[in-house]
């Protein structure tokens, strides 16, 4: 734990942090210059801890895992968790836990080992997928308009409400799309798609930097 870290552990954490490169790191300046403050902004939230879970949520193991994550979502679109650790529904027995990077075991946290211990020897999986995806945050009054250029789902707030997450396609690639507030979306593309999706979103955002044509 961070508060009891020895100097050696602190040095190790520093080495881990220094060695990392996020999937869209090279686009950070482009994201800043391509954002239109107050209209639509794009940022990468790199290095979030992500854990893939496979467990029957109605089983004893499911209950133990849920006690670590703060619940397991019951149906498509559901997200459980209230603080910084949230769990997204991927399938009837498949979930993705998303947490700040500090929760990761390599940085002094215990999320993966806690989940592994909770599952025990029962049927299921706990897999550290932190390097599998990165996180983009698209927000602002025109964030939905950007997504609607490519997303086939109905993103109107009467259907797609804040607090909902779905796996779907954006720009023909598979992503998780999580609406975290009325004008904020978190997008989870696989690492290898981050460059493509980042550039695609920048292109889609570009028109909102100019005055609207009446």
């Amino acid at each position, binding site marked *: 734990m961070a508060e009891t870290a020895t100097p050696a552990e602190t040095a190790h954490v520093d080495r881990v942090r220094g060695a990392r490169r996020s999937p869209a790191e090279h686009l950070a300046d482009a994201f800043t210059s391509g954002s239109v403050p107050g209209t639509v902004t794009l940022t990468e939230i790199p290095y979030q801890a992500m854990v893939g879970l496979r467990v029957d949520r109605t089983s004893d193991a499911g209950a133990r895992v849920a006690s670590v994550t703060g619940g397991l979502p019951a*149906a*498509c679109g559901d997200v459980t968790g209230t603080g910084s650790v949230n769990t997204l529904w*991927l*399938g*009837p027995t*498949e979930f993705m836990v998303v947490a700040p990077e500090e929760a990761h075991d390599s940085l002094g946290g215990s999320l993966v080992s806690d989940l592994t211990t909770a599952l025990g020897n029962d049927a299921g999986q706990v897999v550290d997928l932190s390097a599998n995806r990165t996180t983009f945050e698209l927000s602002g009054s025109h964030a939905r308009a950007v997504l609607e250029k490519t997303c*086939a*789902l109905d993103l109107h707030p009467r259907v797609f409400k804040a607090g909902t997450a*779905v*796996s*779907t*396609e954006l720009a*023909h690639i*598979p992503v998780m799309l999580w609406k975290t507030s009325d004008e904020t979306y978190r997008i989870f593309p696989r690492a290898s798609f981050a460059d493509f999706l980042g550039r695609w979103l920048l292109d889609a955002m570009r028109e909102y930097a100019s005055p609207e044509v009446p």
Partner: protein
Amino acid sequence: MLLISCPNCGPRDETEFHYGGQAHVAYPESPNDLTDREWAEYLFYRENTKGTFAERWVHSTGCRQWFNMLRDTVTYEIHSIYGMGQPRPELQASAASAGASKSDPTQPGEFTQSGDFGQASAPGLAPGATAPTATTPISSEGV
């Protein structure tokens, strides 16, 4: 573009799904008892239905779950979506009769595979089940 209603996720574009071929092809109970021909028929031979067809789909971009679908291969109309392991549902009378006329093998121009490799009446090749008997060749002698 088909709009397919995933039993878990609701209506989604066809591009989120992958096709899994003919449904209700049961795994042989005793694969070792099958002849090479029967094994090959189990593995590779499928109906080529014109009309209502029971097929498997997986929501690969979404919940990654499999399900069955009754779909008309001519009109692309989706008659029914039902779970894996559930029997093929009966269609409503009107839809069934329309489907029956479409798949009536006696109609000229229609092709249904019902010979040695066909599984028209018994989806899946049950082990030990007698292979469909080939029609006795009609000899031209004496005609």
